[in-house]
């Protein structure tokens, strides 16, 4: 169980995190969402005691931070986080020792993790010889090998192919079964939607949306029309009666304005497109995210992320 209360951090004149609170019970997965610069990483750093909060508290299984707390934390940093020129096994054993493990015991555990992720042959290789995806796996092993009660993963799925994403997902679910408190940050809303039990959307240092995924969605109600179609759907974006339209090549998601029924809308669309599927649903997290944070900001974020 991890509990974050009224966390605040200021750098010079910028308030990076402003009164963030949330709880992550053991045996659950918590999604930390928000655009770049929103304060996600600063929050994570304060949880891990890399940074000291200016005010607010973090409790770990009900207790404040002590040096011993470090050994029950696992951390996967956003990118890199490994010594390029060092051997994979040496690096992991070093990290394991730093988390309080016995070297000999750590070796067995690390090797079994590497085996599970298909990296046992690479144990003696240098980190720089591994692909980006494999480096991510190594970091993942570093985050979980010491069986931490609290696992913090910063963008764990970046750079992974679908097969490995699935492997990671399975492991996360397994850790959840074992009663670990898992926090992960991501930009990929569909990942968050499928994996997390609860989430928190941070923007400009503040929590703008939080709660269990079901709660959050319920708040928005079933007023979102999801359609799959063939044909040119460009006109959907400028249609009357809807807002927050998300348009893809062969599908779209749009929020109905009050007073507009799904029937009206379908009637308007039907003559112009070959509709293949129409569903009235809760909005996707992606739509909620855009709605809350504002579309322009996300576009900027996307650019930054790609750079």
């Amino acid at each position, binding site marked *: 169980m991890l509990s974050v209360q009224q966390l605040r951090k200021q750098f010079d004149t910028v308030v990076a995190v402003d009164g963030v609170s949330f709880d992550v019970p053991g045996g659950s997965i918590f999604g930390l969402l928000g655009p770049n610069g929103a304060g996600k990483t600063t929050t994570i750093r304060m949880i891990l*005691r890399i940074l000291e909060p200016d005010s607010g508290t973090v409790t770990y299984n009900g207790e404040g931070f002590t040096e011993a707390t470090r050994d029950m934390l696992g*951390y996967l*940093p956003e990118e890199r986080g490994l*010594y390029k*020129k060092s051997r994979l096994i040496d690096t992991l054993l070093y*990290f394991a020792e730093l988390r309080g493990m016995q070297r000999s015991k750590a070796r067995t555990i690390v090797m079994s993790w590497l085996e599970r992720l298909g990296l046992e042959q690479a144990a003696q290789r240098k980190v720089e010889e591994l692909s980006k995806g494999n480096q991510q796996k190594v970091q993942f092993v570093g985050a979980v090998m010491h069986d931490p009660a609290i696992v913090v993963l910063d963008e764990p799925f970046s750079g992974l192919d679908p097969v490995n994403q699935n492997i990671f997902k399975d492991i996360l679910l397994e850790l959840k079964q074992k009663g670990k408190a898992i926090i992960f940050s991501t930009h990929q809303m569909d990942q968050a939607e499928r994996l997390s039990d609860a989430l928190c959307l941070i923007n400009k240092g503040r929590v703008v949306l939080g709660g269990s995924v079901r709660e959050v969605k319920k708040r928005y109600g079933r007023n979102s029309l999801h359609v799959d179609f063939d044909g040119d759907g460009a006109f959907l974006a400028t249609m009357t009666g809807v807002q927050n339209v998300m348009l893809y090549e062969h599908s779209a998601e749009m929020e109905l304005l009050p007073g507009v029924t799904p029937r009206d809308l379908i009637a308007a669309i039907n003559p112009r497109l070959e509709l293949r599927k129409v569903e009235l649903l809760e909005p996707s997290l992606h739509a909620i995210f855009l709605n809350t944070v504002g579309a322009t900001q996300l576009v900027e974020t996307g650019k930054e992320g790609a750079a």
Partner: protein
Amino acid sequence: MKKILAVARWEYMEKVKSKIFLFGLLFTPLIMIGMGVLPTLFVSEEDVESRIIGVIDPGGKVYQEFAQRFQNRYLLKNKQPNYIVLPLAVGTGVELQAAVEDANRRIADDLIDGYFVVPQGGSDTVVEYRSKSVGDFATAARIEENLKSIVTEKRVQALGLDPSVVRQLSPKLDVRMVMISDEGKREDAGFERVFLSAYVFLMMLFLLIVTSGQMLVRSVIEEKSNRIVEVLVSSCSPTELMAGKVLGLSGLGLTQMGFWALIAVAASFQFGMQLVDLSDAFLLLIYFILGYLFYAAIFIAAGSPLNTEQEAQQITSYLVIILILPIVLALPAMKTPDASWIKVLTYIPFLTPTMMALRIPIQMPALWEILLTIVIMLVSIYVAMVAAGRIFRIGILSTGKSPKLKEIYRWIKNG
């Protein structure tokens, strides 16, 4: 403590395997031996074969006398004459130009080792001893001495006096350098020993601090740019991390020094030179460790706020200038080890270890000076470590632009 040891072990093992460390380990002693031993070997080496010296004497007045003295006076170990003096062109009517050309050709063909031309006319002049190697100072000095006395005797004779008077008047002098120890005892330590021990220790200290300091800064920068530091600092406290780094690095320094000491001992047996007294060595070791720790703190403080290799190189080059100062001062300090400015410099913590390494072999400083400087170093190390710890704690997490000095000062004050 366990985590400190884990960090120390990692820092030690990863660096001991690195190429830059191996290079420093093996090549530094080679350079040292090259710089320290070879010139002295070269200067003091005695000839094993006779040298052939040609003489061009257009007047014909000097050759006979010179050849006789020169051949009889200097002997090789096997009692053969050290020099064979060959008349190249002697007597009146010598065509000087042709004779010189002929002599040059003989040198080129290795028929003679060198030659000189006896100057004509009465006034003082320059005699050129020409040979393939211009480093043969001993031969040149011997020629000068003998020519001088012959010419003097001839002039005295021309005045109508007895030439033997000159020999009586000009004693044969040989200046030897003898070092007197503190107790007023004569020590059979020549210039070479003093020079070598002072210089070699200075250079070793210097190179060790610079190479390991650079390694430290580079590793911190790598950890920062790779965000490894986040993993580290979430696993252990910054203080533990820094302590581990200093410890690992010290282990590295001691390994290096131990290895070099072995080489030095081997070399001194090989060349029959006593490099340094044991009591000196013990003291030097103490200053060595003190200096090493002090500069480790300085390098940590200087390196942890930096983000790029270029900045690191700039900072290390400033530190190198401070470190190199005593090396520049080595010669004047050897001439006047008592000078007050040298003593004053000894009390500046940045210079204390190197200045002491310089002074000890030349002239053992008084006990109170030794104790005082050790206390100064211990205090400085403590202060530097605390300040470095405060800078490190914040510095290793700072990214982007490097902080200004004012900011760093605030870190120290607030930490």
